């Protein structure tokens, strides 16, 4: 299926070429593999929740047995465990994650739908920022390997990896929000996202990813610059700029594609922190409130959502990698 191109033009990802390389069988296989993953996650979450001591109402005032029986019946808690599991699974597949225990008049799906636009916007902006800045810094460091520029980029990257978001968040908010007043220190009205309000959260979320992306990009760029096809391009007398941007950079960016999966996980984890630090009404905020209030269905729903996102982006990354790298073969 995969074939090496032997002509001397940089491999272009023309649309027909990409489609002809689309590994349908492999993609289907990976998609099938993600089903047991999701099933395992939902199953684990469900039984963990049911293993919890007490019921969600045990903290509130004593209810009469009849009322409690009614509540249990309305939530389906009187059925056998395996049947409850089947119901939950069936509903979850259809996007119904059950009612929230604390927010009486809203379902978990509605709460998630409220928070998702905020979280997704900030996550997507942070991902873009991380790829642009991290990729650029990595290229610069690789081109000037072992120079002052390289060391300062790598030092910054080390700092970015070592300083957690729950440290950078409060400090950025204090300096640029409270002291200098350049950006909003926190808080965000739904539907009123602007550069002013989301800049600091996006920056905080992106910093560790910028660090990781720049390290990945530097390492792979150094390798690519030493490879035969770059030497060939030089021998042909191409300009350095053309070698860099048409030949080397696209090849070096390949490892970034497989980093999409882990990056998603990192961004989700980070989003929980920054939504708390900056007081944003995103999914992560609901998740933590749910965890503190022991709102099991909400916590479970968000875990399933996050798992779904991570599985999906891992899948996309794997397939995209296969399409972009002709050396990958599917056997």
């Amino acid at each position, binding site marked *: 299926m995969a074939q090496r191109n032997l002509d001397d033009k940089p491999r272009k990802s023309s649309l027909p070429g990409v489609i002809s390389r689309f590994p349908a069988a492999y993609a289907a296989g990976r998609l099938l593999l993600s089903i047991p993953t999701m099933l395992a996650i939902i199953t684990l979450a469900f039984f963990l929740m049911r293993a*919890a001591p007490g019921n969600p109402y045990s903290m509130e005032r004593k209810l009469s047995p009849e009322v409690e029986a009614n509540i249990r019946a309305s939530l389906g808690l009187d059925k056998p465990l395996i049947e409850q599991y089947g119901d939950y699974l069936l509903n979850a597949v259809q996007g119904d994650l059950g009612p929230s225990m604390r927010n009486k008049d809203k379902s978990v799906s509605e709460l998630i739908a409220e928070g998702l636009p905020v979280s997704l916007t900030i996550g997507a902006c942070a991902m873009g920022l991380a790829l642009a800045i991290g990729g650029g810094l990595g290229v610069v460091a690789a081109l000037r390997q072992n120079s002052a520029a390289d060391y300062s980029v790598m030092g910054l990257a*080390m700092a970015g990896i070592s300083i957690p978001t729950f440290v950078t968040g409060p400090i950025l908010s*204090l300096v640029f929000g409270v002291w200098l007043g350049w950006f909003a220190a926190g808080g965000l009205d739904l539907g009123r996202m602007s550069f002013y309000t989301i800049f600091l959260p996006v920056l905080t979320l992106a910093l560790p990813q910028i660090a990781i992306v720049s390290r990945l990009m530097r390492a792979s760029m150094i390798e690519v610059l030493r490879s035969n096809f770059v030497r060939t391009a030089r021998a042909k007398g191409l300009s350095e700029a053309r070698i860099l941007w048409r030949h080397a950079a696209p090849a070096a960016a390949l490892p970034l594609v497989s980093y999409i999966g882990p990056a998603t996980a990192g961004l989700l984890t980070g989003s*929980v922190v920054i939504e708390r630090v900056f007081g944003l009404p995103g999914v992560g905020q609901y998740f933590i409130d749910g965890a*503190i209030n022991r709102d*099991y269905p909400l916590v479970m729903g968000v*875990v399933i959502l996050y*798992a779904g996102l991570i599985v999906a982006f891992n899948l996309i990354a794997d397939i995209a990698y296969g399409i972009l790298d002709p050396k990958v073969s599917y056997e």
Partner: protein
Amino acid sequence: MNVTAPDLGGSRAMSRAAEEGRSLWDDARARLMRNKAAVTSVWLLGGLVIIAVFGPMVWPHNYDAIYRDRVAISPTFENFHILGTDMLGRDLAVRLMVGLRVSLAVGVIATCVSLVIGVAWGATAGYLGGRVDQIMMRIVDVIYAMPFIFFVILLTVVFGQNIFLIFLAIGAVEWLTMARIVRGQTLTLRQREFVEAARASGVPPVKIVTRHIVPNLLGPVAVYVTLTLPVVILAESFLSFLGLGVNEPLTSLGLLISEGRENMSKLWLLLAPALTMVSALLALNFIGDGLRDAIDPRDR
């Protein structure tokens, strides 16, 4: 006769030189010692460990002692509150030491848990190979896609906040990369002559794995352990920061940072734990990177 004698002496000298030759580990140590960042980090980390372990024992204040008349005072030498006191009137310096102690303890214990599971799993899969390997690594792939930290949160929601549970839970979700690294190494070790010799002389598989394979995994495992430590410490602090980890009056770096964030006007409450955390993590990362470059110098 005349010709062979000096020749003999020469070969003896050569064999002595070989005996005193530098092993791979000597080379690695020499490379590590040349890495200034790593050496500085070792000293810094050593200092932090000593402060965390012995500091609270010799400090004049107790970590849960509340001084009602000295709430949130800024750093001063009066009464020896060199980092000030927190919002409840507790000495911040001693709380910082205890927090560092808890964070480091979580790091070490959870890393050990992940080390044991990861090495056992990876070495078994790699050594047995074939179908067993396929199934075991497929399981790792499936778990790999799970959002670990959220499962730890789910666990704390279900079973309540218990510090030992946090140790175990973090360790139990961080072993996957270790298992992959160990399996890869085992696959190559398995083909080597000394393993073949052991197998030929009838050594049982369990003993081959424990006596011949695992000791040879030491290099990459040591590197990955130092890189797991900061990840685990971060995970615990993340939980504590969100209020889902260590409980009061016990504390950890994440919890202290969270308290500092809530009272931004008292800047020292945020800066002291934040700087401690960052320097510990930086030191661990520099040591890990240094070890990796020293043991596997291909990248440099």
